[in-house]
């Protein structure tokens, strides 16, 4: 009995000390981490929908999806696309939709800018695990990636790969990735359409 008490006490003491130290470190680093996360997500949004705001103004405002009553999973050409978040850009420039979907290898997260006329203003892939040299080109900053993504500027919700009779050139050797990116862009535009008619 005495033994158990001693064990418990020692373990409790060590845990309490570690927890205290972690609390202190968290206090020091929290603001910097939050500022970085906001800056990063704003940069990703600015890549698909640039907005000019005055100093101190928030360029993007988060839209609460729960209150809208719109289904956040959209079926685009047979593929399920999940809507993670939607932000309203300042000055009525439109919306930035964050989508999540499966590619050839794993899950991709992509930002899609949609203007009030339901045209895509750009896409930006923020997370992926596609094959390097093939599907990963969709997210790369090299010419091949930039060219692929720039095809999406101005498309509407009927966007398709050329193989399916549309306007998008697939990345060579990465049809599955290209198709899922195209579907996600289409789903994002359709979501904004539903959002606008709900308001």
């Amino acid at each position, binding site marked *: 009995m005495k033994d158990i008490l*001693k*064990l418990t006490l*020692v*373990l409790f003491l*060590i*845990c309490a000390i*570690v927890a205290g*130290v*972690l609390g202190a*470190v*968290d206090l*020091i*680093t929290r603001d*910097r*981490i939050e500022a*970085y996360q906001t800056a*990063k997500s704003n940069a990703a949004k600015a890549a698909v929908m640039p907005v000019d705001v005055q100093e101190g103004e928030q360029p993007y405002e988060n839209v609460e999806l729960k209150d809208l009553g719109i289904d956040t999973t959209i079926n685009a050409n047979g593929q399920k696309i999940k809507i993670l978040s939607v932000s309203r850009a300042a000055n009525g420039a439109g919306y930035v939709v964050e989508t999540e979907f499966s590619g050839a290898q794993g899950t991709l997260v992509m930002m899609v800018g949609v203007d009030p006329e339901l045209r895509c203003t750009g896409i930006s892939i923020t997370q992926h695990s596609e*094959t*390097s*040299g093939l599907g990963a080109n969709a997210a790369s900053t090299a010419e091949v990636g930039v060219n692929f993504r720039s095809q999406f500027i101005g498309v509407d919700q009927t966007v398709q790969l050329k193989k399916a009779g549309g306007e998008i050139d697939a990345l060579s050797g990465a049809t599955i990735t290209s198709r899922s990116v195209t579907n996600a862009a289409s789903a994002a535009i359709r979501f904004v359409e539903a959002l606008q008619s709900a308001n």
Partner: protein
Amino acid sequence: MNFKRQLKEGVITNNPILVQQLGMCATMAITTSLFNGVGMGLSVLIILTCCNVVVSAVRRFIPDQIRLAIFVVIIAGFVTIVDLLLQAYIPALSESLGVFIPLIVVNCIIIGRAEAFCQKNPVGPSFVDGITQGLGYTVVLIVMCVIREFLGSGRFGGGLIDAVKGFTLDGTGSGIQLFNAEYGASILTLPVGGFLTLGFIFAAMQAALKKAAKNKAERGDDEEEEEEDE
């Protein structure tokens, strides 16, 4: 236990990866650019040194039955501190290493050293052990990064050289392009390339150690003189 001998053990004869074969998962996953390799190596070095010192300092107060639980709490504490600091001050590194920083908690090098060394030795040698074993880990990561980066995409020093030049630490630079990336064996940049590279380094290391042992046996007399010189 002097510093020189511990250094030799940590980096060569008892290298954590090549001889003890610990912590290989992260090794294979993150050695794709020199920036990652050096960042991961130094993170492990710092965490290992801190944990070694603390474990060794409290070793007399820890009941034997719950020592592992306490080691894990201490290790997890330091890993979380490093993780938070990286997120706040070197976010690019934190992002490219991703889950492998939190996973240092279960990295067997650290718990292995706590169990095998620090709970039997005083603070001084444990501190030195953390630094030398951490260096051994870092050296192997650097070698793997250089090989995989060069053969895989024809580059050297991805992210790191640009970071040193511009003091930016954003890890975005592509280093020095030595030959066109199209001619690289891109398999080496994939996880399977990690297995291949590590396998070849193991083989080279074992061959070298064997040769050294054989030489030593052949000239046993010379060896004794050398020891005295030290």
